[in-house]
């Protein structure tokens, strides 16, 4: 069966302006030449640090913003070719859960009204009784009680609000849901509740998820496949659950090495010399990770490596990938 979502050479460049005349002085390549597929029923994770373009990518896929180039195909249809009405109709099938449940709900609306709005916007014809039943059903589905429909957002805890946001995303029975850091604003114990709820709902309703997070341990646990982004580019695509020996790209290695494990017997050695992601303004032709890469060599300054598949079916955008080819890796270390 064809993939549910196909992303091809997707780009989003924002102009950087300066001076009183707001002349364009450069481009932020927020998303740059990104291509991947999401299979039906798959949970695909996107991980990266702030400014890597993961949220921009989510908005591009739902076509909440116009891309600078490239296409998105959803269920065989190219979104760029659809008219406004057709796009709105298709949005029933694709929904999004946002990071901050406190700002995702209108404080003046009851939960019932926030959920009912979904059906009004999509002009779904329902009797008031059927709507009430459906909303009660949605609330129970996400672990709340039908009475919560009468509450206002401020009367709910953060975890309960996020459950409402999830219920809203599920209201129109979507096939595809983008989860943009759905647990980042929540407490650890509540984060685990929401993660488990999302897993259960996906199985029950046979949905496809795109899960965006900065927490590589959470992505590794929740997803089937992981895309690692750095400054608007995909640097690696790897299967989840491989543990710590998996990465081919040095940036993935760095991300995994930066995660502290909740076990004092597994402390890590971290370099305290500052190294931080640049912003994506005015990138040169060099590899995006070159300035921070411990294995960088002259070639890395001359050309951005393309995302290529190796013999084991793994994708990495690196001239000298780790792990897969031991010889090259050793050479890279020696050449430092």
């Amino acid at each position, binding site marked *: 069966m064809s993939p549910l979502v196909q992303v091809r050479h997707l780009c989003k460049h924002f102009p950087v302006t300066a001076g009183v005349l707001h002349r364009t002085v450069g481009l932020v390549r927020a998303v740059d030449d990104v291509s991947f597929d999401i299979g039906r029923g798959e949970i695909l994770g996107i991980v990266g640090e702030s400014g890597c373009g993961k949220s921009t990518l989510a908005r591009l896929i739902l076509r909440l913003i116009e891309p600078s180039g490239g296409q998105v195909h959803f269920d065989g249809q190219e979104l760029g070719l659809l008219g406004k009405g057709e796009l709105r109709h298709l949005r029933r099938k694709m929904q999004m859960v946002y990071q901050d449940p406190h700002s995702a709900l209108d404080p003046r609306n009851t939960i019932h009204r926030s959920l009912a709005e979904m059906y009004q916007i999509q002009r779904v014809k329902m009797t008031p009784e059927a709507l009430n039943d459906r909303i009660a059903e949605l609330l129970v589905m996400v672990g709340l009680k039908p009475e919560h429909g009468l509450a206002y957002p401020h009367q709910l805890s953060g975890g309960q609000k996020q459950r409402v946001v999830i219920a809203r995303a599920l209201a129109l029975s979507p096939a595809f849901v983008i989860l943009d850091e759905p647990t980042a604003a929540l407490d650890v114990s509540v984060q685990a509740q929401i993660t488990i709820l999302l897993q259960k709902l996906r199985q029950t309703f046979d949905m496809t998820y795109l899960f965006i997070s900065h927490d590589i*341990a959470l992505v590794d646990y*929740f997803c089937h496949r992981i895309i690692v982004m750095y400054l608007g580019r995909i640097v690696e695509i790897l299967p989840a659950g491989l543990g710590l020996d998996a990465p081919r790209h040095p940036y993935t290695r760095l991300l995994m090495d930066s*995660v502290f494990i909740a076990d004092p017997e597994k*402390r890590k050695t971290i370099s*305290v010399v*500052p190294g*931080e992601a640049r912003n994506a303004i005015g990138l040169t032709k060099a590899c995006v990770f070159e300035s921070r890469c411990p294995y960088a060599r002259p070639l890395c300054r001359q050309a951005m490596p393309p995302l290529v598949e190796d013999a084991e079916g793994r994708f990495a955008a690196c001239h000298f990938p780790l792990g897969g080819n031991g010889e090259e890796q050793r050479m890279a270390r020696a050449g430092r």
Partner: protein
Amino acid sequence: MTLLQVDGLGVRFQTREGVVEPLDDVSFAIEAGQIMGLVGETGSGKSVTAQAIMGLLPYLNGEICSGRIWLRGQDMRDLPEDRWRTIRGNQISLISQNPMTSLDPVYRVGHQIVEGMRLHLAISAREAHRRAIELMASLRIPDPERVFQQYPHQLSGGLKQRIVIAMGLCADPKLLIADEPTTALDVTVQAQIVTLFKETTRKFGIGLLLITHDLGVIAQICDTVAVMYAGTIVESGDVHSVFARPRHPYTRALLGCVPKLGMPEGALSAIPGNVPSVRTFPTGCRFHPRCEERRDCCQQAKPKMNLIGREIWVGCLKYDSQRRDCW
């Protein structure tokens, strides 16, 4: 002499809706050169603990209603404000969560470090400049002379947080309190800053109270840990013992909520229910409505801290020898 000793601390706030008591019977100690982690979820009282130790409660309509805080043997309760001014900055200093709100956007960052030094230490501007550069270099800020002349907006998040740490250290405090110092940072930068905290406390021989909700950070650098829930400490002691064998049901449940790399599917567990707010703290053991092991007596009897072995304290009726009747 113990650097900081907190003994049975209780805190009360006057609010428009009445009196609330966000802290109840909180006790712990920090030695010089040691890092203690204070871990807990929203509303557990971590930040209020920091405010009480910094003597900031009067500014927030709050007061210490029971217990004592000792700093190097000196009783800090009811200290007049002019005495506090010689303690804050000089002896204790606080680093807050968001580096951007701790820095003034219109002054060069070097000036902001020097300002603190000259306020707390009687030194010349030239001497302060020299010390500021030295301090920045020791925090591994590259090219400190150049960074000294820059404004906050010109610096990355990690460098800004290093400047805030330098401001906290500028008057040689004995105790540093860091309230969620890495929450606003990216993971790779967080790793550097956390490591820098460890290096700095060892180098200067100061005590660090690290407040966080991140169990990974606690495990990485702390010597001791205190786990807070709903305004009380439920378990405290040596970080290796607590993580290897968590005794309080909350500590155990909390550790089960953290995803780890390579964890098999279905291995993540959650704690049912929600974190109670300060107005809805349950009676008896405050964790009992969410506890898997609760018994009838947990609803009424407030558990006291029980010493296990030489250094682990657990606030659970299961470990109370006088409560064998119900457990």
